């Protein structure tokens, strides 16, 4: 496979293969249930307030017994958006929690114009990125949106083109580093057996998907197959595709 073809495959996988991983989205935004009307107790008829009798003072209060409490039923009814993206900080910590240290650093070989490493075509725009940067931090603005909007509001919770772009770049950086064994613990990039693929899923999206979910096993199989394509890819690019796909999946990007 040529460098270009492999690169194209990597990106295609990022864009397309990530989709099945979304299947476990458990968000829902159905209509909410309003609290039922209050259950109340009958009350006596206390007479209070000033009278209008001009000459004779009139008692204005009675000595009725305290009213029994009024019970108001309510439903704990949280309002959450159906989909929320992780912030840049959360994306970075999630990636590092999944693939370990040194998994988000930009290398010269990733930047267009640089010398390809490991057979992967450079994919980051020259002039925008530079070696040594952290890919997530460098794109914090794309992940988080306009900081001005945070004055009195919240971070955007819609998947924007900017967010997807930033996520794709991040996924490719992580995939690149896994392909080239340039993370602190290369074993965290392993996914070529069922057990390793499951371990990767548990580590990366175990906070949102349960192994008891019926989709768990097929998901692991998909990931393993992606990691070990048939026929096999040159070198270890299958691993890069699998890793990049996982990182760019909506399940990974979504806040639980």
């Amino acid at each position, binding site marked *: 496979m040529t460098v270009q073809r492999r690169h194209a495959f990597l990106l295609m996988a990022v864009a397309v293969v990530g989709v099945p991983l979304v299947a476990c989205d*458990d968000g829902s*935004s*159905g*209509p*909410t*249930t*309003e609290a*039922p*009307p*209050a*259950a*109340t*107790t*009958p*009350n006596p*008829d*206390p007479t*209070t*307030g*000033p009278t*209008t009798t001009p000459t004779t003072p009139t008692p204005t*209060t009675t000595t009725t017994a*305290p*009213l029994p*409490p*009024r*019970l*108001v*039923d*309510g*439903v*704990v*009814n*949280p*309002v*959450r958006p159906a989909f*929320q993206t*992780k*912030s840049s*900080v*959360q994306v970075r*910590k*999630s990636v590092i*929690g999944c693939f370990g240290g040194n998994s988000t650093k930009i290398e010269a070989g990733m930047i267009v114009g640089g010398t390809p490493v490991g057979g992967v075509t450079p994919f980051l725009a020259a002039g925008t990125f530079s070696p040594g940067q952290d890919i997530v931090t460098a794109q914090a603005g794309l992940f988080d949106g306009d*900081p*001005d909007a*945070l*004055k*009195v*509001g*919240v971070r955007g*919770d819609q998947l924007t083109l900017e967010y997807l772009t930033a996520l794709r770049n991040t996924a490719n950086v992580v995939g690149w580093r896994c392909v080239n064994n340039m993370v602190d613990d290369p074993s965290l990039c392993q996914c070529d057996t069922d057990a390793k693929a499951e371990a990767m899923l*548990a580590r990366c999206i*175990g*906070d*949102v998907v*349960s*192994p*008891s979910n019926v989709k768990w096993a097929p998901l692991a199989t998909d990931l393993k197959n992606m990691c070990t394509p048939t026929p096999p890819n040159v070198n270890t690019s299958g691993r890069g595709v699998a890793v990049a796909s996982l990182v760019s999946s909506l399940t990974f990007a979504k806040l*639980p």
Partner: protein
Amino acid sequence: MRARWLGPRTAIVFIGPKAAPSSKTRRTMRNKTPLLQIVVLGLAVGGAAAGAACGSDGGGNTLAPTPTGTPTGTTAPPMDGAAPVDLDASVDATPPEPPVPVWADTEALAWLNLKCAACHGIDAKGVAALYYSAWPMAAGGVSKAYLETSELTPVAYQTILNRLIGPEGVTPSPMPVAKPDAAARLELRAILAWFDRALPLSVVDADGRYGNDTSTKAKVILNFKCEKPSTLRQFMSRFFYGALDRPPNAGELSKYTTAMLDAPVTVAQRLALVTLIETTLKTEFLDSGLRKLGTTIGGGPSVANPPALPANVINDLRDEFYNLMRAKYNTTNYHDLFTMKEVMVSPATASLYAGCTGPASGWASCAIQAPRDGYFTTVGFLTSKPMSFMQESNNYGRVSRLYFTVYGETLLPATAGPSGEAIPALPTCLEGTDTRTFVGAPRGAAAVPLFGKVCQSCHLGRHMAAGAVLFRPYARNGSIFDTATLGNAGTADADQFMAMTGTPDWKYTAGGVEKPVDAAYLKALLSVSTSGSPAACILEGSSTYVPVKGVADLANKLMSNKAGLSRGFMRHAHRAFQNSPNITLEMGLRAMQVYDGKTQHLPDLVRAYFLSDSLACEVQ
């Protein structure tokens, strides 16, 4: 006279989760913070999370126990149909009115959206109605969830109540102002009864703010149910991302079996997890979660680029309040953070404060000196809304930001629209000399409220005028103006000074004569505010004005509404930890409950937030 609303013949009194306060405490609370009397809750979470409401205090039940022996949701509400509204005879001596219709939520919301949206709504294109800023109704109309937790709902309630029974000139102004006919009265009584039934806390709030008579009301117990409890896995994810910006790691998940992770989260599990940020994960929380909270409350992201401040200073100013929160995390009550005479400084920011020597690195505490008097006069806060009295907005944005910081809700500007007729005079305790206009439009602290009664709803009712007087000494970059050198070349905001004094567009009125704004006039305005006894006062209740000595005093008076303050914390926390703007009533009550306790340190409030049932409950 005080409004008297006897409609539902119920009242809301304190029934604390713990023992009721002593008589001495009650007296104190009545005198200082009337709203503390109204915390009324008894939470019970149904389903698998039953009892989840009881775990916020080291395993102790800090909320009212679930009422026993009382059927919930099964008793017909007889009060509204059987007990007609009994208005104060001195207000309305007409014969008894017909029974109040019992409106369901849908009817009531439809009525509000129909009657109010014409003035307070906004259309799909974002075109706001004339009084949108006073009560911003969402494009789709208000919902019960919004009303339950909005700081503006008590005001809306009071405008309706005042329309029914309020005397002339009462604040907030009845809406609409026309006297209601019989049919309208019946609708008003129905909607008021619905407020009392469906939004009891807002009614309590309004009663406290406006001095409504509550002597005949019964206590309310709020009985919450969670119909779809979160699993432990869901709760862990929500908690870890919120508090630590990361997912739970394999080791943290492995403490539970898959079956446990997929089962509804228990109270004990929630408590154990939340306790982690006070023990083994405390440092991580202080580094990440508290930073989010601090910048959210302190407006850090919005510290702009005021003149003459370099980038490294601005960066540190964004973290100024966060570092104060961090330094005082375990030792200071939340509300005291805003009024204490202390600021955290870095090597880059120390020189902004008189008498402060910066640390060699990191952050250090420094005593701030007059006229600065608390967080709202720190450079960090002031530069989060860089403006001065020498521009059209006249520091109103800073007052709005103060309001936002305390209550977590934004006041919207309104520079157009009807001003209202029958302009009441300004209170004599409020400075009346800032009559500036710009091309004829009122801009000064006195000019705006003198323009119309509607303008007074914010500029007097929400303290814009007083705040403009109190914030006057501070420049866009947070420095302090000197009357002697105001406008001199090289001094702060000299460009604004030149712009305001160099054009006939800016005028003021004195003795009935209109004159162009000049240097002497601006210096005179400034000298009033730096005199140590600025002529500023705010409306307390419906008609009483009380003096405010400074920005911290203004903040203190706002914060005396503990219900609003604690709900405000929850709003900030929810924005920071869950990136979500809408809290639930249950969350608001959780925070209010903290104000029934001995301390209101940040850990108390943070714990209340993460232990709220709403975080352990899924959307239906």
